[in-house]
């Protein structure tokens, strides 16, 4: 079974399955942009580190507002399609308890050319951190804390511009 392009899941992320899903997805309803046109695949995996801000991390627990998170991923997909029409994108985010070394997020971009594949992949992780309703609860040696990042506002054009800037787009 081909997995969804945009997914929140409690099970281990499968990068290869996501790559297959993205590379066989058409970028346009006409079927244009299928794998014949794939010349470059960029992927990103976020992994639970054993150390954060000098603390020894024991595990993370991710929580998501699932229906909105999936829509946020699709919104990022639409932003990517607007900027890079030939790009196909997939985002899978894991929630629940994650141990050190496990992957929390997998992003795949397929493109005819490498420049866009890299930029769109980088843009996507920046946007996920800005607008995906996902939270992480860090359990470290001696305590635990909810990590709070950005106030999620998909309409904040300045944040979007910053994500493009970081993607070198």
């Amino acid at each position, binding site marked *: 079974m081909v997995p969804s392009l945009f997914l929140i899941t409690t099970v281990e992320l499968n990068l290869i399955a996501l790559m297959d899903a993205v590379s066989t997805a058409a970028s346009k309803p006409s079927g244009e942009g299928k794998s014949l046109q794939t010349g470059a695949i960029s992927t990103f995996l976020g992994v639970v580190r054993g150390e*954060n801000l000098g603390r020894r991390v024991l595990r993370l627990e991710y929580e998501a507002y699932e*229906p909105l998170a999936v829509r946020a991923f699709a919104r990022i997909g639409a932003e990517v399609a607007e900027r890079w029409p030939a790009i196909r994108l997939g985002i899978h985010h894991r929630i629940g308890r994650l141990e050190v070394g496990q992957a929390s997020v997998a992003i795949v971009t397929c493109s005819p050319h490498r420049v866009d594949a890299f930029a769109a992949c980088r843009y996507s992780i920046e946007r996920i951190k800005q607008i995906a*309703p996902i939270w992480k609860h860090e359990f470290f040696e001696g305590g635990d804390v*909810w990590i*709070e990042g950005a106030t999620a*506002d998909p309409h904040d054009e300045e944040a979007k511009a910053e994500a493009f800037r970081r993607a070198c787009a």
Partner: protein
Amino acid sequence: MRIKVYLFARLCDIVGNNEIEREVPIGTTVRMLWDNLITDFPGLEVYGESLSSAVNAEYARMDVVLNDGDEVAFLPPVSGGQSAM
């Protein structure tokens, strides 16, 4: 009107529940619902500046007027993606 309220992460910890129901009068906005919650859970107040909200699983401004049966989510600052900056 009956509104379902979802609370996430620290907000859930403060309220002690990730899902509660509230009765509110017609014309209530997301902001009014939030202020109403603060009355019962003063610990929420610090999130007033950094809060996002959603109505029926779509991001919504705080001045949106609610309808009976709406599901409102209050979202503290997000931190998805990888494990560290």
